[in-house]
């Protein structure tokens, strides 16, 4: 039904794994990089579609572990195998330490037009706890280099939830805004299974903000960035007008996307599948794709509805009903009544949406009744 597709390329390598991160990535495996790129290109070439590529997103891991020539060969494979929209959003995630002028120029020359920089914080003490390789000066420098190279669509990531006071958070946001970037993602720190943070948290060596404080920080961030001219367009994302990430939005809007590489997820023509988390299995082409159980019609509708609610604009009722051949207000009558009464969900101008940041911060409690 849709002639568009969004591509994701996973780069599962890091110089050093961050102690809080549970994304699939390998330390000390950079010697496999060249082989990995080769396999990536194979996977890209094996995938046939007539859909037009709307975005290409290099995520990780740390994509900036790649040399420019690696990126070039991957993009060449994409261009030679698919039709790519001339306005496609091409995003590259990177570590601040990697963004030297030369590297940036290389990225620019390959047509990459959006950078996502893992700044995380402007407080050096916090960066240390987070186990990051950079300090705040390097972060400032990286963003400046990018802007000097001519990148005009830059996103930075921030993490919070490490016992920051409101003053600390204000400091973070003031610095973020001073960079004049187009997009800011803010992530609540959560303790993930299998991470070093999990161990430290369990042993009591690490403490994090309690729910109450985290929620207050969330609301504070939303207010602050909104008054600084950013739109709170998704639960964790803020953007200046027109700079919402097309690629990430595709996930929530239920568009087709295809992920290449280790642990990448795909959703093509209604079918979900996911690649293996094992670098070796991927490289050796060993059982590396897992297809997920097909959802029946009603579950597809529910999933689409829940994903859309993560977006500020929520669900456009008529459009949704047409696309999924349903009557969403009838299907969810009880739930909508309940949460409208609780001021969690609102219906206005033909849209159903979470009622602002206060509702977003408890969205699981709401969304779990719609799934």
């Amino acid at each position, binding site marked *: 039904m849709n002639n568009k597709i969004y591509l994701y390329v996973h780069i599962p390598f890091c110089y050093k794994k961050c102690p809080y991160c549970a994304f699939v990535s390998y330390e000390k495996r950079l010697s496999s990089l060249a082989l990995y790129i080769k396999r990536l290109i194979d996977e890209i070439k094996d995938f046939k579609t007539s859909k037009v590529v709307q975005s290409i997103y290099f995520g990780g891991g740390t994509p900036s572990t790649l040399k420019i020539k690696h990126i070039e060969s991957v993009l060449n494979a994409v261009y030679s195998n698919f039709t790519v929209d001339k306005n496609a959003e091409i995003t590259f995630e990177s570590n601040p330490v990697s963004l030297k002028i030369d590297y940036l120029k290389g990225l620019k020359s390959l047509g990459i037009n959006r950078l996502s920089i893992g700044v995380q914080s402007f407080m050096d003490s916090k960066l240390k706890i987070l186990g990051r390789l950079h300090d705040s000066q390097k972060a400032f420098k990286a963003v400046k280099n990018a802007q000097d190279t001519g990148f005009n669509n830059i996103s930075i990531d921030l993490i919070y939830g490490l016992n920051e006071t409101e003053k600390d958070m204000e400091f973070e946001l003031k610095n973020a805004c001073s960079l004049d970037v187009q997009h800011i993602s803010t*992530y609540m720190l959560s303790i993930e299974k299998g991470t070093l943070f999990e161990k430290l948290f369990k042993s009591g060596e690490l403490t994090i903000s309690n*729910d109450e404080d985290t929620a207050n920080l969330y609301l504070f961030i939303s207010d602050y960035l909104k008054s600084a001219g950013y739109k709170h367009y998704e*639960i964790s994302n803020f953007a200046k007008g027109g700079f919402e990430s097309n690629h990430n939005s595709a996930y929530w809007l239920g568009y087709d996307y295809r992920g290449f590489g280790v642990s990448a997820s795909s959703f093509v023509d209604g079918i979900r599948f996911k690649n293996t988390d094992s670098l070796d299995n991927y490289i050796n082409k060993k059982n590396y794709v897992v297809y997920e159980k097909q959802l029946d019609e009603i579950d597809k509708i529910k999933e689409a509805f*829940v994903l859309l609610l993560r977006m500020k604009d929520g669900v456009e009722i008529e459009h949704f009903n047409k696309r999924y051949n349903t009557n969403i207000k009838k299907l969810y009558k009880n739930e909508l009544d309940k949460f409208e009464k609780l001021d969690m969900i609102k219906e206005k101008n033909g849209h159903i949406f979470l009622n602002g940041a206060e509702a977003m911060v408890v969205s699981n409690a709401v969304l*779990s009744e719609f799934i």
Partner: protein
Amino acid sequence: MKEKYIRNFSIIAHIDHGKSTLADRLIENTGGLSLREMKEQVLDSLEVERKHGITIKAQTARLEYTYKSEKYYLNMIDTPGHVDFGYEVSKSLKACEGCLLVVDATQGVEAQTIANAYLAIDNDLEIIPVINKIDLPSADIEKTKQEIEDGLGIDASDAIEISAKNNINIDKVLDSIIEKIPPPKGSIDKPLRALVIDSWYDNYRGVIFIIRVFDGQLKQNDKIMMYSTKKTYEAEELGIFTPKVKKVDLLTNGSVGYVVANIKNIQDAMVGDTLTLADNPTNKPFEGFAKPKPFVFAGIYPTDPENYEDLAEALEKLQLNDASLTVEKEKSDSLGFGFRCGFLGVLSMNITKERLEEEFGLDVIITNPSVLYKVEQTNGEIIELSNPSKLPPPQKIAAIYEPFVDIEIITPAEYVGNILKLLQEKRGRQQDLSYISQDRVLIKYSIPLVEIITDFYDKLKSLSRGYASFDYNFRDFEKSRLIKLIILVNSKEIDSFSMIVPKDKAYRTAREVLRNLKRFIPKQLFEIRLQAKIGGKIIAKEQISPLRKDVLAKCYGGDITRKRKLLEKQKRGKKKMKQLGSVEISKEAFIKLVEINN
């Protein structure tokens, strides 16, 4: 079979004093089962029994033993050992001429030793004291004998000293059964007169009952009559347990055996009834046993309301085998449709719950156990109720009467202070306090039943380091200063949390209950106000602030499935939630609340 070669006996003991082990040894030593067939504690047949280490349904075994070159038949009639099952003990004893009173030499006489010995004395049984576990280092045989003499008034000078576990002096027990216990009386020439001592429902055979023949004889295919209903049946199959099932053609005067007679309804073969022959009935029926009265009541609800019918069916089946279990339909605002059930005690309640879960695969919630109250209304009418939410409004109540029990506790003297304090707290009144030996005390109190049905046993054990034992008997209904405590969640009354409490304890209980609610009710999207009310007056308050954070902030590179699974898990959790007014609470939390609230 000549009566003089028959002996009918039971074994009675306090729990864990070794009754079942002794039964095993007696079977093993008389060849009732080969070693290979000998499972540990063969008489405990139900899975649940094995788990609790107690015997619930009485069973019998006929042992063959040669004494002075003559063959004797010893009918062992097993009895349950726990305080809840006093009724079952008494019906087993009715079928005997004597009993073995087993006392653990490391523990001495305990509360159920006394209770069971009194039952035996009441039934005019020959009591043979048996002192068990004599080979343990902490055994004190002399002291145990002294306690049997002082506490029970039974001559213990020739008590048999045994170790059931290690098979020491088991032959002496067998000899003494023959020497001391009188053979059955009665006459084989009189009309058949047999007592139903147990009955249960078998899915394939219908009702099976165990009888003790007191006069006459019963042959296969005889036309029998149940005396109370005058209904007649054909005795299709007769048999005995050795303890293996063994069919026989004839049950003669003095013997014990089972009868299958195609009876479909357990009500038609009630324990205590007289079985006789249809064409030559006896004119001396037994008095029958009083039907056991449930003392403890609780609501049983399916966790998933869709299982209501299954629960109904399961309870019906359990009732076939448990004459004391009463079942009535009930509806609760928070739990939906369920049943109010009556049990002999808290142990029987827990066993019923386990059987529902294990044998029927049902997931159930049991509400606060409660007792039967008698309420005198201002119009003079007296109503009985066990569900606190059924209590009339205060202005219509003239008085509330609650059941009191006589409780007997035996404890080492050093814990007496602690125990008296506990009994005082539980609104007990002292009746007597005496020393049964130099350092062991028998405490007698009367106490409201409701005070001992939940945590009393655990508290008593922990106060006495496990040494105190207790038993109780129903005493009477007494007028008490009781009021209904109502719990409100966001102004809505939660019926399953209502309770009847002593007026003097109302404030303390209210505060405790609310504190627990606060602990176990998860935060919701709105503020929760908790209140406790008596009459029209709010006496305690708490509040639970709203949920502040519950969000998945990360995206995992398009791994929507992972996100969906998380939400689905949260949803599944919610499906099992119980509704407390507008507030949702998990089953686990609900059960905790129910347990703690009492």
